[in-house]
Structures are given as C-alpha cells and as structure tokens.
C-alpha cells in the first residue's frame, strides 16, 4: 500500500499529518511555499500555557516527519482531477500523482495595518504579537527599550466585522496573557494593561496563567476594546478605551502597545482552494463535510483538511486535527479508494 499522498503546507498540521501517514506506510510528499518548515510556529518564541519553547515543539515535529519527501519554496501550480486521483503540478516543475490531498494551509496573521485607528505602521510604539515574539527570540526591537507602561490590545482583527472577521481567533487571549507575563518578567517595573472584550481562556491551565498574571505579575485587565491610539508629543502613545465595567471612558499613556493580531484564512491556501474549486464559508475558512462528524474531510472526495485551514485552532488542537486527518486519509485509502468498481457509490455512502 504505497499510495501517494500530497500534503500542502509545512506547518505543524502538515508536519504532524506527514509523520503519522508515513508511519502508516504511505508515500508522503510535503510541500511548503516558504523556504522553511514550521509555519508560524517557527517564528514563535514560547507557547502558552506552560511557556514551552516553540523550537522544542517544532524540533519534535520535524523529527517525527523525518524521511518525508519534502519540497520547500514550492507551491501548487495546477491540479487536475483524474478518475480518483489528483495530478498536481508543482511550481518546482515536479508533477505528483496523488491519491489523496491533505490541505494544511494554516492561517495568516491579520494585517494590523488594516485596523487604522490603532496606527500600526504609523505610530512608532505600536507592534503586533508576532513582532513581540520576534523580539523575544532575537532580544532586540527598536520599539522596546525600557517600557514603563505596556498595553495589550486583544481582538485585533478578531470579532470585528469592520475588519471582515467576525469570529474569535481563539488563541489571542492566552497569547496576550502569556506575553504580558513575559514582558513583566523582562521588565518587572513595568505596568502592563490588557484590554479585552471577553477573556476566552477556555483550555486547561489557561485560567491558571490568567490568575498568575494577576496575582504574581499584577497585570491589569481592562474590559473594553481599544478604540483609538494616537501619538503624544514625546512619542508615547495615548490609548483610549472604555472601562466597560466602570462604564466610563478611559485613557492611558503607554510606552508600547502590542496588538494581538488574530487569525485570518491563509491567502495562499485560498489560491489552492480556488484551484480545487473548494468552497469556503462566510468567514473565509474552508468548508468541511461536517463540522462535528467529519471535520477533516472537504466536500470533495480525496481532499482532506487539517489545522487552521478550517478555522482558528490552538496548537494542540491543530496537532490532534492533523492526526485525525491522517486517520481519515487512511480510512479513505483503505475502505473507499481501492474498490475501483464501486468507488462512486462508496463515496456517496461514506464520504
């Protein structure tokens, strides 16, 4: 059983699914459009809730996927559906005949520039969660010198219809709390404020880090979305929000504002979706066969989905999703695919 499986996207979901499918004995081909594997994980420093090094997690994922045929700097040029398989032409000139395709195209971070009132890219002291992770990794950022007051604006490009993203990005609250703690660790004298609408700390130990942020680090949580940022004469930021708990408008001068940019459907993922004529839902993420019972199957037989391609997910969720997708691929390739005669009927019944 050496079926070819093409996995599109070399982030955590793609890597984990590759590893699993390879262990099952399939011939896995993994393509990644960027020069490096690991997706957003490779750019992150530490992970919530227990501050594990992202590198460590990625290292494990990469180790698991050793032996997988992997093309980086590679995208899909064209896809043709054959009888049951897919003929995929890659940008590196290679053509793959694949019996199943797993799309793990992940997400893009919301482009914070679009949230104009926050002045990202305009005011010097405004940065994003990703910028901050890069700072944690590299230890330097022109914006961070010795900030006395630091703010975290939750829900930037999440739960915001004006920015075209109604949904919650799921990970930003926990990330904000994590980063707030890390900033307090780096600058113990700093005052840290988190501006939130709802603290969606649903996972195991998430509430613990929230409590820790309050109790041990004195992070102040203000219920109210940041409404406006502007720059003072001295280059500090004037941030306005409502303290909705107090029911009063509020302002604070900050030395640094971190925007918790949310998850958006991946643009390159969408391009592949277009090639496959795969439908997306209103929120821009790929539609699945059934949100509850078949979350890893696309509406098209033989095309599978894993990770944030089907909506915001935390890292553990993504990995679990990838494993589930691997199982689904295996089921398809053992139960439906081999029966050439009844293929169409089986698809109708079991896809």
């Amino acid at each position: 059983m050496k079926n070819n499986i093409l996995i599109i996207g070399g982030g955590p979901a793609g890597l984990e699914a590759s590893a699993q499918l390879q262990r099952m004995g399939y011939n896995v081909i993994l393509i990644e459009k960027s020069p490096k594997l690991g997706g957003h994980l490779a750019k992150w420093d530490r992970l919530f809730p227990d501050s594990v090094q992202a590198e460590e997690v990625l290292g494990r994922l990469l180790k698991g996927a050793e032996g997988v045929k992997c093309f980086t700097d590679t995208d899909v040029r064209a896809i043709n559906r054959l009888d049951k398989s897919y003929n995929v032409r890659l940008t590196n000139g290679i053509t793959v005949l694949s019996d199943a395709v797993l799309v793990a195209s992940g997400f893009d971070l919301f482009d914070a520039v679009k949230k104009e009132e926050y002045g990202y890219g305009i005011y010097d002291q405004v940065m994003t969660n990703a910028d901050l992770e890069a700072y944690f990794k590299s230890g330097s950022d022109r914006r961070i010198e010795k900030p006395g007051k630091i703010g975290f604006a939750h829900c930037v490009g999440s739960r915001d219809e004006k920015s075209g993203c109604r949904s919650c990005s799921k990970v930003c609250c926990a990330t904000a709390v994590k980063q707030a703690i890390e900033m307090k660790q780096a600058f113990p004298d700093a005052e840290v404020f988190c501006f939130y609408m709802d603290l969606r700390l649903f996972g195991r130990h998430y509430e613990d880090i929230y409590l820790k942020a309050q109790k041990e680090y004195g992070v102040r949580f203000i219920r109210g979305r940041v409404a406006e940022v502007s720059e003072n004469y001295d280059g500090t930021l004037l941030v306005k929000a409502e303290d909705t708990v107090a029911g009063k408008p509020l302002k604070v001068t900050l030395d640094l504002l971190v925007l918790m940019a949310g998850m958006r459907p991946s643009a390159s993922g969408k391009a592949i979706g277009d090639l496959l004529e795969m439908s997306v839902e209103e929120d821009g993420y790929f539609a699945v066969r059934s949100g509850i019972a078949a979350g890893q199957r696309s509406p098209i037989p033989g095309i599978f989905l894993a990770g944030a391609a089907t909506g915001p997910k935390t890292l553990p969720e993504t990995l679990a999703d990838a494993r589930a997708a691997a199982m689904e691929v295996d089921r398809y390739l053992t139960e439906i695919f081999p029966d050439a005669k009844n293929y169409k009927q089986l698809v109708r019944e079991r896809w």
Partner: protein
Amino acid sequence: MTPLLYLLAIQAADPEVIDRIPSGYSHFVIPFTVGITFMLCWIGVGCVRLLAAIPKADRIKFWKSLLIPKTIVKNLRDLFGDCLFHVKIWMRKPLLGYMHSAIAFGWFMLIVLGHIEVALFVPARLNVTRGGLFYPIFYRYFVWVNPGHTTLRGSFFFFLMDFFLLYVLSGIALAVFKRFRSIVLGMRHTTKPSLADRIALYSLWLIFPLRLLAESFTADLSGGSFLTVGVNHFWHFLFGDKLWFTPCWWAYSICLGLFFAAMPFSRYMHILTEVLWILLRNAGIQPNHPRKGVAEAEIYACSSCGLCLDACPMNVQKKNLKYSSVYFIRFLRRHNEKKINAIADKCLMCDKCHALCPVGVDAPALRRAQRATVNDTLPYDYSYLPLAVPGSILAGETTATLGTLRGGTGASLGDASGGAERSEAVERPKVLPGTVSNNKVLYFAGCMTHLTPRIIKSVEKVFKEAGVEYEFADRDGGICCGRPLMLAGKAEAASKVIEANKKLIEGSGCGTLVLSCPICYKIFKEEYHLEGIKVVHYTQFINELIASGKLKVEKSEKKIVYHDPCELGRGCGVYFEPRAALDQVGTLVKAAKEYDESVCCGGSLGSLTLDTRDRAKISESSLENLLAGDPETIVTACPLCLKTFSEAVSNSRLPIKNVAVKDFAEVFCR
C-alpha cells in the same frame, strides 16, 4: 491562724529547735533576697500603675467587689482552683493538671508550711527586720534540731515538708519530661520560650532539686523526714562524715534569686499577676484597650502554658502557630505593634483558646480590642439606615418623601447615564408594620442564611408543620446584625446597625425572635436588649416545639454527629438543646472533640486575613474531627458551618463515604 500557732509554740516545754546561727543571717541569702526584692518592687509598682490606668468607676467597682461576700467566695474558689490546683487543666488533661498543680500547689504549701514552722518554732524570725524575708525560706539552714526534744508535732511538719518537696519534684520531673515529649501529657504543641522564660525555667527546674540537696545535706543538723533524712544518710554513706553544705545553699539561693529576677520578664510572672487578674475579672471589669488597664493584668496573667496552641483550629498548619493567643499576648507585652496587628487580624475568634485557658484569659476579646484600635475610626456612612425615623419608616413612607425631595428626577434619569453612576438610593429597609401580636414569632434569617436558602426553607417548613404563627423579618433581605462589625473591631459602626435593627424588630411587635444564625443570635442576645422579646436560637425553639409536642418527630437509627458552631456553643453556651432535639430523630454519635472543645469549621467571619486555602485546611481538620464516630449525617446549626462543611465534604481528600451535611432544621422537616 497565726496566734494559734504562737500559742502552740509557747506550750512547748523545751525548744524543739534552736537557732544554729545566732545572727540569723548568712551571705548566701543575698542572691535570693535581691531577686525577690526586685520582683516584689516590680509587681508593686506594676499593680499601682495598673490600677491607676483603670477608669475611676472601674477602680471603685474593684475595691467594692472585694467586700461583696459572693465575690469573695468566688475569688477564693478561683484563686485555689485556678492558681493552685489548676482544676481546669486537670479536667481536660489530668497528667498535665497534675504537673501544674504539683508545682504550684506543692510550692505554695512549702512556703506556707515553712512559715508555719518558723512561726511555731522560732516565731521571732518572722519579723522582717530579723530576716523575715529570707529566714522562712532557708529555715533549715539556720536551725538546729534539739535532739531528744522532738515531738510528734515536729515530726509531722518534717514529714509534710518532705512530702510536698517530693510532690513538687514529681511535678518538676514531669515538666522536664514534657519539654521533650509533650505529647505524652496531651500537648501536641508547646510554647516556644523566650530568653527570660528559659532563664526562669531552668532556674525553676533547679530550685527544687537544689533545695533537696541543700536540705538533705543539713538534715542531720536541722532535722527532716523520710526524704531529706534518707538522702542525708545516702550522702553520709557516699562522702563520709563531713558534709560541706554551704555551696548547696548558695546554689539554691542563686537559683531562687535568678528565678525571681527573671520572673517579671518571663511567663512565670503569671503566678502572681494571675491573682490580680482573677480579682479584677471577678469584679466584672472589662478591658477596653488591648493592653492598658485591666488588659494589662490579663496579659500578664497568661502563663504561656501553651494550651491555646492545641486549641487553636488554625494550628492544623504549623505555620499558623505564631498566630496563637499565647504569642499574641507575648507581643502585647512587648508592644510589637506590627505583629500584634497581624495576629489580631488572623484569628477566627472561635473562642476556644478562651474556653480552654486555665486562667480564663479572654484573648479573642483582646484581639477585638486591638482591631478596634485600628478599625474603629475608619470612616463609614450608615445614613441610609432608618435610625431616627420611628414608625413611619416601617411602612416605607420616608421612601416616598426622600424620592420627592430628590426632585422627582430619580426616575427620569435613567440608568443609561453611565454604569458607574450608582443610581439613587434603591430601597429603604422595611419590616412589616406592627401587625405581629405579642405572642407571635418573628423569624430573622440574617445575611448568611440568605446565602443558604435551604435553611430558610426548612425553618419555614418546620414552623408550618408545628403550626407556629410567624412573620419573616427579612424575607427580602435585611440589615446585618452587627456582629461581623463587632468582630472586626468596629463597635461604633455596629451600634448603628444594632440600633436600626432594634427599631425594626421592636416595631414589629413580636414576642419571640427566632434566629437561625448563631452569629446574629449572639449579638441579639448580648447587645440588643430587646424589651419584652424573647430571643431564641432556632435549635432552642425547635427543641421546645418537640418537647411541647407541637412538632412530631420520629426516632431513627441514623447516626448523626452534631457540630457545635463556635458562636452558639462557646459563644452562647447552647450545647444541650440541639442535642436533645437531635436525639429525638436519630442516634447521636460523638465527635472527637465537642462541646466547648468543638473545632471551628474555618468559615468563621472572625478572621480578617485568613485566606481561602488556609480556611480549607481548617475545614478539613474540623471535618475529620466530626467523622470520628463514623456518622451518616453531619448536622450543624449555622449557615456558615453548613456552607463550609458542604464544600469541605465535596472537596475533601479524606475517604468519606456518603456523609450528608444538613442544617439543623432540615433534619426536622419531612
């Protein structure tokens, strides 16, 4: 008594005892004399200062009390019972009681008998100018027994003296033993002695062995009985004829001197101050400051025996030992303001240390007084309470007036004017206007009961079942009883809510006030002084309903353990009624510790600073205490205990099988 003894002495034909040293003095008495003089001066000055610090009215009360026969009897009883025999300790921990009484009573007897001996045989030496201060103490050094003239009377005293010395020595032996293995004497924790304590303690330990040594060395000259003479023979056997005894007497005197010199700075001061405290206490004088006036007598009356250490429910965690009453008092003596406050705020106010204190030191009251020094002056504004408005407030008339006074715009303002803008006064407290006739019952649930509606439900059910006509005083919520304010040291604020509640309750015209919360009950009973209204706790009320046959109950085999809520048991002495009633419906089993030794559930409002985790530890130990008799149901009669135990049972890591936590009233409703 003394004249009689003189008489006896005169009757003797030949002196039994002759002055061995005509001057009646030896240099070795100096250490002792200096020590005791210092101590006596100290205490003398202290007493005067203390009495001066008491308000004049109290001082007069004190002097008068010393003349009241009833008080005199009580004083004598307490002085002997508490100071000498340590009856309270005996009753709880016999071995420990024996130890304390052996040392206290034994030593007391040695001093008394020593003086009697002097009075009998060398009466002139009782005069202070002739060495009266030290002579009776070192009697055996100064005299020479007249051989051949010994009488039965002399032998009898010799015997008594030896007997009490042995008695004291047995106590000392136990004390030394206790220092190393206190648990054998029933104490898990013992007080950590201070430096002065150590000096005094080791001196005390040495005093009596040295006395034995000294007296036994001189026993062949000064006489003695079975012990001293026996030991004397042993020395002769060991050292031959020549016994060089002066060093022993020096050592004995030095130890005594050291002890007395260290006494004012040590726990042993209590031996004397306790007397003053008992007199003041029995005179009914209350402390109004944590360490001035009467309180000073009280804090110096503490013997640092450390019984409160085991009594304190907080000490289930060793880190809390430092918050025990004994240390509180020690820091009060030392004026360590920061520590005093921390300890005062931590306490649960369960009153167990007070109940168990051999000298009756009311440490919780001192803590309350300490809290008051900080909290009583904090600002508050209870102007919303119906204080000076009689009658009409009950019908809610003033509400309307106030509304109109505010310009009638309250309604038109709308709440949208900003969440933070607290809208105008919401509602005025109201109780049914005076419709309740005198034989009617008013039920006051109280704040905490409102958080445990199952109690309200059950109480109402029981009332209905028993056909009690009642009115609900605070169905829609009422004013706090004031006890929590009191416990926090805000007595003045408490008086405001008391006044408000009092108006409401007296205005209701009820005859009986039933309370389901012991916290309310205590303060209603003690501070409200409700004219013509009987204040009862619902345990008492339900017991009465059963006794009078109004409430029918059925006995079952169900094993019930009853938890004595602090404020109800130790606080108000209600132990009997709840048990009597529960006995009618189930089989009462014993908790490991109950009645006044019951362990606080940990939910008490008394503590100001104890955090949730520490409280949970206490709850767990209190629960363990209740589970000793393997009960099926834990019954308590306090909303706080109920809530605490309910949570403790579900969170407990103890192997608990199906133990239900029920409120007292719940047990009685079908």
